[in-house]
C-alpha cells in the first residue's frame, strides 16, 4: 500500500534508540497520570459523595482503556507501518494489569474490608463480578511471562499462543462493565468500549483472512511461474507478521 506509506512516512518505521527511549518515557508518564490524578483528588477531598465508588470506577475504567490501547498496538502498526509501536506494547499491557491490581485491591479492601466470604459469594453469584474476576486471573500469567527471558524460555510460538488469551480478557473486561451497567439500564458507555474492542478484534480477523488469501495467491503464483522474485518479499512479510 504505497498510499499508506506516504501518509505515515513522516514518522520512520524504526526509531533511533534515543527517540524510542523518549517515546517510552512519555508513554510511561502518560499512563501513570490517571493514578496521579486520583491521588491528587483523594488528597484534596475531591472524590465526591461516594469516594470508594469513584475510586473503583476510575481504576476499572483505566484498566479497560489501557487494555484496549494495548490491543490497538498491532492494528495501529499495520495501519501506519510504524514497527516501533510494538516496543510500547508490553509496557501498556503491564500498566493495564497494574490498574487491574489496584481495582481489585480497592474492591477487596475499601469496598469489602477483606470480608472474604461475602467477596467469594458475590463473585460466584453476580455475573459482572464473575467476568471481572476471571479476566483478572487470566491477566496474571500474561504479566508473569511478559519478560524477554520468559519469551525465550517458552519459545515464540508457545508464548504467542498463551498471549492470545488477551482477546478473551478484552471480551470479559467489556462484559464486566456491560453487566455492571445493566442495572442502570444505560448501556451507552459499555457500547463504546464494545465497539472499540469489536474494531480491534475485527482488524485481526481481516488481517488473518487477507494474509491467508495473499499466501494462497502467492503459492498459486509460485506453482505457475516457479519464480521467487517480487512476491517473495510479501511472503516474508506475511510470515514475520504471523510470529509477532
Amino acid at each position: 500500500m504505497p498510499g499508506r506509506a506516504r501518509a505515515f512516512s513522516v514518522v520512520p518505521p524504526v526509531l533511533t534508540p534515543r527517540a524510542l527511549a523518549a517515546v517510552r518515557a512519555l508513554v510511561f508518564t502518560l499512563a501513570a497520570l490517571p493514578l496521579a490524578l486520583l491521588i491528587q483528588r483523594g488528597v484534596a477531598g475531591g472524590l465526591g459523595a461516594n469516594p470508594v465508588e469513584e475510586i473503583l470506577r476510575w481504576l476499572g475504567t483505566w484498566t479497560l482503556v489501557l487494555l484496549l490501547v494495548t490491543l490497538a498496538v498491532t492494528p495501529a502498526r499495520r495501519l501506519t507501518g510504524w514497527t516501533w509501536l510494538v516496543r510500547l506494547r508490553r509496557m501498556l499491557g503491564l500498566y493495564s494489569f497494574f490498574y487491574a491490581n489496584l481495582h481489585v485491591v480497592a474492591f477487596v479492601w475499601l469496598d469489602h474490608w477483606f470480608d472474604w466470604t461475602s467477596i467469594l459469594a458475590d463473585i460466584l453469584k453476580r455475573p459482572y463480578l464473575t467476568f471481572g474476576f476471571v479476566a483478572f486471573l487470566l491477566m496474571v500469567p500474561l504479566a508473569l511471562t511478559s519478560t524477554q527471558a520468559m519469551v525465550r524460555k517458552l519459545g515464540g510460538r508457545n508464548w504467542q499462543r498463551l498471549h492470545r488469551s488477551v482477546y478473551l480478557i478484552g471480551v470479559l473486561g467489556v462484559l464486566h462493565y456491560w453487566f455492571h451497567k445493566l442495572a442502570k439500564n444505560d448501556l451507552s458507555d459499555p457500547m463504546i468500549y464494545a465497539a472499540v474492542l469489536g474494531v480491534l478484534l475485527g482488524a485481526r480477523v481481516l488481517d488473518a483472512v487477507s494474509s491467508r488469501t495473499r499466501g494462497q495467491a502467492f503459492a498459486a503464483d509460485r506453482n505457475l511461474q516457479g519464480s521467487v522474485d517480487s512476491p517473495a518479499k510479501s511472503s516474508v512479510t506475511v510470515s514475520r507478521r504471523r510470529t509477532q
Partner: protein
Amino acid sequence: MLIHRSPGIASSEITPEGVFRRRRALLRVGAGGIALNCVPPILRAQTTNVAPLPSRPGSFSTMEKPTPAALVTSYCNFYEFGTEKDDPPRHAPQRLKTRPWTVRVDGEVKSPRTFDIEDLLKLAPMEERVYRLRCVEAWSAVVPWVGYPLAELVRRVEPTGKAKFVEFITLADPKQMPGLDSSVIDWPYTEGLRLDEALHPLTLLAFGMYGHVLPAQNGAPLRLVVPWKYGFKSAKSIVRIRFTDRPPATAWQKSNPSEYGFYSNVNPQRDHPRWSQKSERRLGEEIFSRRRPTLMFNGYADQVASLYAGMDLMKLY
C-alpha cells in the same frame, strides 16, 4: 479500626449551609488552581433554588448526623437529566422551570382538583423531618426534608371506596430534560404506593431540604419521600397524583421486571439480583470507613412493619 458512631447531634451543631457553601467556594478556587479540567463534580454542584423554606421541627426525625447538603445536591439519581450522578446537578438547575407548576389530583376521588404549587405550599404547616435515605444502589444518606405528610393532601381530595392505590406521575418535558432522549425508562417516570402506605404518617410530600426550597436536581418543586423504601420510590417533580383501584405499573417494574417489584421496601435479606443489600455506604464518610449494616425497612420497622403483616416480603419485594 474503630468506627465512632455519633450518638446524635443537636441541630445547633450542624454547620450552617452558608458557612458550608463558603468553604466549598474556597475549595473550588484551590482545586481550580491545581487542575482546571478535573474539578470534581462535588465542587461544581450548583443550587439555584436556595430560597429559605421555614418549618417547625416534625416527628420521626433521626438523631443521626445529616449528610452535608453539598453531597446530597451533587450526587443524584434523576434520570430525566442523565444517568450519571453528576448529570442532574449540571443540567437541572438551569433547565427545570418550577414556576408555573400545577399538580393534577384525580382518579378515584370525590373531588378531583388541580392544585397550584403556591396553594400546595400553604396547604399544611411545613415540618422538618430528618430521615434516612437508602438507595437501591447500596448507598445511603441522612436528609433533613421540609414538607408535610402526604395524608394532608389525600384527605382534601376524599378518595372513594374504590381507591386502593396511588400513582405518582412526574414531569417528562424533552425541552427541559435532556435525559428523555434515552430510552432508559418508559417516560414519564411513574411510581406507586398502596393507599395505606400513602396515608402513613412517615410518608412526606416534600418541598424543601436543609431549610431551603428543593434544589432542581433533588426533585423541585415537590417530591415524595417514603423513607422505608428504596429511594427510587420517592418520585421527583410530581405533576399528577392518581388514585386507582389496582396497582399502578411503576417505571422500574416496567423497564426491568425481573429486578424490581412494586413494594421495594428496604430489606437486607432480599438481595438485588446484581448485588447484596445487606450493607450500605453512607455518603460523605471517609475512604477508609466500612459499610454499615442495612436495617429492615431502613430502620423504620417499628412504624411500618404492621403494614406488611402476614406478607412474604421475599416474594413481594
